[in-house]
């Protein structure tokens, strides 16, 4: 039984990691896109961040060096990652549910990390159990919102209910498992896992909880729960991407590649025949007879 549990954990970790790598690769290898930023951009110069300004506010901005305000960006990231500030500002009714749910996960991760070190075992246990409770509570609160809100009809799918219900159930099961008689400590469990000591006795409830968690974890990167990966890209690569085109830059090289791509759009005015590149199409005039024919 313990062997099975360990195998499941290893398989799940492999699945999760490879899924995450695939996701990152999927998004990172998409072509460099046109600018589509949205202000405020937090790495802008300090005096401009407060009102959401950009370097375009300076006259002859192209003659002035870029000032990248890293501390500003890190602060906004921290507020967003740990406090869910945009939800706090825009959707308070969702915030407490989402905060509880996600902060619970952070707490569990922190508790696991602390447990590995063997320091402050009681604190680690307290944080972990508290985290599990927050996940279960947040998950149920999110589930309830989806089930009862009149806004959710067309936008909630069967899988959304399953995800939330599963996460709440897993948290509750693991919580109970931690209280089962003879439940090993995280440190003992981890030691057995890494050394392949299958003689370790794991109570059934805990096994069940860990097994379910492993199954879910393996699936996460293949669902929209991978939004923790997407969020890096939507913010850093889209909303805050204000990089300007510099002659000879790698961005310029990427754009040259893009402009050499050959579209196949069907509408007549494009004149896209699969042979002409974007650069060529851009230099044609659709009102001249040869393009229209």
């Amino acid at each position, binding site marked *: 039984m313990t062997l099975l549990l360990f195998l499941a954990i290893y398989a799940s970790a492999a699945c999760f990691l490879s899924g995450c790598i695939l996701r990152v690769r*999927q998004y990172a290898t998409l072509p460099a896109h046109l600018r589509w930023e949205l*202000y405020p951009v937090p790495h802008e110069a300090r005096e401009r961040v407060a009102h959401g300004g950009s370097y375009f506010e300076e006259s002859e901005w192209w003659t002035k060096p870029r000032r990248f305000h890293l501390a500003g960006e890190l602060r906004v990231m921290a507020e967003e990652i740990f406090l869910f500030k945009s939800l706090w500002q825009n959707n308070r009714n969702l915030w407490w549910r989402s905060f509880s749910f996600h902060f619970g996960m952070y707490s569990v991760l922190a508790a696991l990390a602390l447990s590995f070190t063997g320091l402050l075992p009681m604190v680690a246990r307290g944080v972990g159990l508290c985290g599990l409770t927050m996940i279960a509570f947040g998950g149920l609160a999110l589930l309830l919102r989806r089930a009862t809100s009149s*806004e959710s009809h067309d936008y909630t799918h069967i899988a959304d209910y399953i995800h939330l219900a599963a996460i709440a159930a897993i948290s509750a099961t693991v919580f109970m498992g931690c209280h089962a008689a003879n439940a090993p400590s995280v440190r003992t469990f981890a030691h057995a896992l890494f050394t392949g000591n299958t003689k370790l006795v794991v109570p059934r409830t805990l096994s069940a909880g860990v097994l379910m968690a492993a199954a879910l974890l393996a699936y996460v990167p293949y669902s929209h729960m991978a*939004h923790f990966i997407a969020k890096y890209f*939507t913010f850093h690569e889209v909303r805050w991407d*204000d990089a300007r085109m510099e002659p000879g830059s790698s961005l310029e090289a990427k754009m040259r590649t893009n402009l050499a*791509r050959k579209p196949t759009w069907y509408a007549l*005015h494009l004149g896209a025949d699969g042979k002409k590149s974007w650069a060529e199409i851009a230099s044609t005039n659709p009102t001249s007879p040869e393009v229209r024919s």
Partner: protein
Amino acid sequence: MKSPQDVRLRDLSQRESEPLFDITRAQLRPLPDAFTAASAGREWKPLSESTACECGLDNTCALNLPKPSTWQEEDELVQRFIQGVEKLFTSENNWGFLQPLVLTMEHCTGCQTCSDSCHIFEASGRAEPYRPTFRSEILRRVYFKHVKKGGLVSRLQHGDIELNWPMIARLAELAYRCNLCRRCAQSCPIGADNALVAHELRKVFSQEMGIAPKELHERGSMLQLKVGSSTGMSPRVVRENIEFIDEDISEKTGVEVHTPWDVEGADVLLVHNAGEILAWPENPGAFALILNAAGIKWTMSSELLGYDSINYGLWYDDAQFARVALRHAEVARKLGVKRIVIGECGHAHKALGVIADRLLMGDLNIPRESSLTLLRDIVLSGCLKLDPSRNDFPVTLHDPCNLVRLMGIVQPQRDILNRIAPGFREMTPHGVNNYCCGGGSGFAIMTPNNFEDWRAQVSGRKKLEQIVNAFSDCLDDGNPKFVCAPCSNCKGQIRDLFVYHDVWKKNRIFYGGIAELIGNAMTDVKPGFIDWEWH
């Protein structure tokens, strides 16, 4: 017919051709009390085209799509749409927006946080199809089913959709019920962008199916590429018109104003939205007055496209966008100017300033600057003699989305107003959190059928509310008040809003650009640059 709040995704595939829902005045978000009585009179023109065209969404119609006459034709249209969506997700066809689009497709959690930030959804009394996530949900299901070829698991994760022509026709209209202001994207906790979805849908319709509003395509970007300007002005006519403006402004101000043409190597190539020249000549006039007085070495261009900064492709078609942007840059390169300065036009700012930035290679990447920063420098430098007391009336500022939320030009216009307009007060909210005027993404120039009713009653409603609230302390005092809107499209929309709701007559609220306010404060010219004559 359903109530607007009860429409569901599946209703879009209904075969009956009458509208799914009606926007009625009773359901609209109420205007401020002080204003309601004044605007109650106007009736929504009934939609007379509904039998001839696809008008199956609501009680307006932007596209006038012809109805297919045979099943075969209908089937071909559906297939064409699916192929268009497939192309939308390929690097060859859509490298420019692919990454943001895929992220939006795959990671919206359906939390509806964005709904409350949409002025159209709010003003309509929360008509479900106007919800920012509604049209995205349709495209998302098409994406997972037809592009990702998802099976059972995908259907459980993302839902299913049966596409038919009525649904696609309604979706085409729905792509034109969003101002592309991206206020929804700003509030998304994940960073998904539902306005981008409307933009991308418009591209599928235009680039694959040849479907776009006449005002934007046939009489917009096509006309511009043919005769030089979407207004239809040829180089000869634009020079005559500017000559007329020069004379008119000289006469009015007592200062000889002359616009330089085609000066090679000039410091500044000023490109206006050509609509300014025809409809708001005091704006280009004020620019000429100010730049001459400040001693700027500037010029206008009479080369085709060199005198019209508009680029409607920004709203619906990447190829048309690239063509126009390229020609703008070529005109500047040929003249050998140091920089292009974009007049008071929001979408031209974003088009040439931001989106075109990564398209212009080598010596075509000529520096582009906002006229607002140039005007700010001139006003603050002290080189003009300005008397703020000449602008001694309440002024509020409209933030054009393209300039502000989408480009980060927030402070220069405020620096100017703080210097020259003692009665300046902000709207709520403002800056990067502003609301669109309701004319964004081409709506300001779209008038088919009763689209103007929709614009004035629905998409412009929030802006009207903001304007009225900004002047709540002086709404009925009979004194003139000024909405400063440094953008042609916004001005057009605000003008139409004010005509529709009779705002000048009832509340003495006027509107105009920022250059006019500067001209009005210049002590070297005869007082009264701003004509408080309506329209």
